[in-house]
Every structure is written in structure tokens, then in C-alpha cells.
């Protein structure tokens, strides 16, 4: 069963999005693999202290993306293949990098400065 121990709710973005992101990151990190079971909506709602509708929304969107599969009555399971994994990695990477870039842009840095900073701090 997938653990949510490492998950904390932050301010600033909708909770359902944070849940989706957490699951995606775990998938990329390899802590969630194909076939892993998700906690039921009610259990997760109680665990996180979050309204069941929010959990429902997160699970529904994950299902729309083809990442999880619900069987009526039984718990939802993660559905993964290497293609999905790659797609996810690319998506999250793109989104992370875009966030960094816009943060850098906000501080007024130029592209070359950013690249040299990255080279400096890579090690």
C-alpha cells in the first residue's frame, strides 16, 4: 500500500493538485511501482484530514490520465509502463525547470548567468 508519510499539505495550491503531484513524484522516484495499491478515498481523507471530495477529485484526474485504475468495490491500483514513466519524468522535469527559470527571471538574471550558476553549484 502506498504510503503518504512523506506528504505534507502546503498553502498556495489546491490540495488535489498537491496529492497528484506527490504521487507522480513517487512514481518517478521509484517508490511507487506498477500495481501498487492506493489507500481508499475514505482512509486517505482521514489520514490527511482532507474532505473526501478533494481525494475523489485527485483520484479521478489520475484515472483520467491513465495512471490509476479503479475497480468497483476494490481499491485503486497504479498502472504503469515504461512509456508512461518516461512521459511523467519529462512532464515533471519540464515543469520543475520552468519554475526555476521563472524564479530566476524574477530575480533579473540573464540566461548565461543562470547557466554559469548551475555549473558552479552542480557539484
Amino acid at each position: 500500500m502506498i504510503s503518504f508519510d512523506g506528504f505534507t499539505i502546503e498553502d498556495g495550491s489546491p490540495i488535489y493538485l498537491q496529492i497528484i503531484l506527490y504521487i507522480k513524484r513517487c512514481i518517478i522516484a521509484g517508490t511507487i511501482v506498477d500495481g501498487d495499491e492506493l489507500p481508499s478515498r475514505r482512509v486517505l481523507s482521514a489520514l490527511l484530514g482532507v474532505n473526501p471530495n478533494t481525494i475523489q477529485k485527485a483520484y479521478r484526474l489520475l484515472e483520467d490520465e491513465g495512471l490509476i485504475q479503479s475497480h468497483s468495490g476494490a481499491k485503486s491500483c497504479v498502472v504503469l509502463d515504461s512509456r508512461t514513466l518516461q512521459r511523467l519524468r519529462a512532464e515533471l522535469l519540464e515543469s520543475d525547470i520552468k519554475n526555476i527559470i521563472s524564479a530566476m527571471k524574477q530575480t533579473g538574471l540573464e540566461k548565461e548567468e543562470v547557466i554559469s550558476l548551475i555549473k558552479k553549484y552542480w557539484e
Partner: protein
Amino acid sequence: MIELKNVTKAYSGKTALDNVSLTLPRGEIVGLFGENGAGKTTLMKSILGFIKYNGEITLDGQPVTTANISKISFATSEHSFFPNLNAELHRDFYRHHFPTFSDKRFYGLMEFFDLPLKKPLRSFSTGQKNQFEVIMALSQGADYILMDEPFAGNDVFNREDFYKVLLGILEPHETVLLSTHLIEEVSGFIGRAVLIHSGQIVGDVDVADLEEQGTSLIDYIKQTYNYRADRVSRALSILTDEEG
């Protein structure tokens, strides 16, 4: 569904509820927010039939009478238990009157909150009394659970525990109406927020919709009340100008 239609309640001179219309469908967790004296308690007491009002309130299509009142339970910061009686005797009393009473929930929650079964309620701390009050409201077997500031006096840890346990045990058909001042705390827990101000409903929103818009519950409430963020600084500048 509980439905309020054009409910008005006036006390000598003061209008506690002003033409309030509201529906509470089954299965929702609704937060009721408003300043002191806004009408939150009056609203709940009207639903329960404790006070007379103008207008109409129905429970699943019927007026609220002894025939259906067991579908509603009530937890209040004023507490509604018998101070001399212990918890187990309360359970007996509830069981006798409410056939839907759930022993499983009662004993489960009493154990979870580590409350004594055989000591008189009077000997409980305020926090424990609040917990017991809510336990009884949850164990009654009601479809609509009304809670009026149930956590006044509980520390944040046992409040959080409580929201989580609540979410874990509530069945899909159970409805919760919770009035509280603790907006930020309950914003994840509730599915819908109703705002009441001077007896009128001034806001009614699905929390999911707020999330889509990117507005936090507190911001929504502030906007609705036309709260001016610069109010404090303006007041200060006036004060300091006078002193200077």
C-alpha cells in the same frame, strides 16, 4: 435534505435571522462561518425547533417534529449532557431513546480519545467535555449532525485528531454542519462554506470551486466581508498622527 425557506427570527428589536434560505443535502460537510451574533446558533436552534421562527424548515420534506427529530443530532459548546451522569449512563439514555445509536462508534471514539466511562461528566476537563459532546452527536445515528463551535477550549492537536477521525468514520449519507471561528483549520476538511452576517447568508461556496479559482477560504471570506487589509495600518496612522 434539510431545507430552510425564508426563515426570519427577531428578538426584541434585533433580527437574528433575516430571510434565510438554505439547503443542506445529504453527505455534505458544511462549514458555517460568521462573527459573534451573526446568527449561527440561532440558525441551528431553528432547525432543531428550539425556538419559534417565521418561514419554513423541512427535514427530508417534512417539518421537524418528534417523528423525525432523531435524524438530527446536536453538539454545542454550551454542552448538552447531564453533569452528574457518567459516560456509560449517557450511552444507556441515548440508546433507550435513539434506536439508531451506534455502540461501535461510541466505544470506539471513547477509547480513541481516552475518556473514562464511569466518571461523572462534571469531572471532565473542558476539552474532554467537548470531545464527549461530539462523540454523542456522532454516535446517535443521526443523518444530520449539527455542531455549534464544538471545539472551544480544545488544543490544536486534539482538534486535528478529531477532524481526521470524523473524516474516517462519516458515512456518505451523513451530513455535518459545523460552525466555527477556526477558518484556516477547517478549510481542508469542509466541502462547502456558508457565510452568515447579521442574520443574512452572504456567501455560499463549494470549496472545490474556490480551489479552481485559486482563492483560499480565508481570502474568500475576507472579500465577502469587504475586509480592508489596510484597516489596521490606517487606524495606526490616525492614532500616531493624533499623538504626534
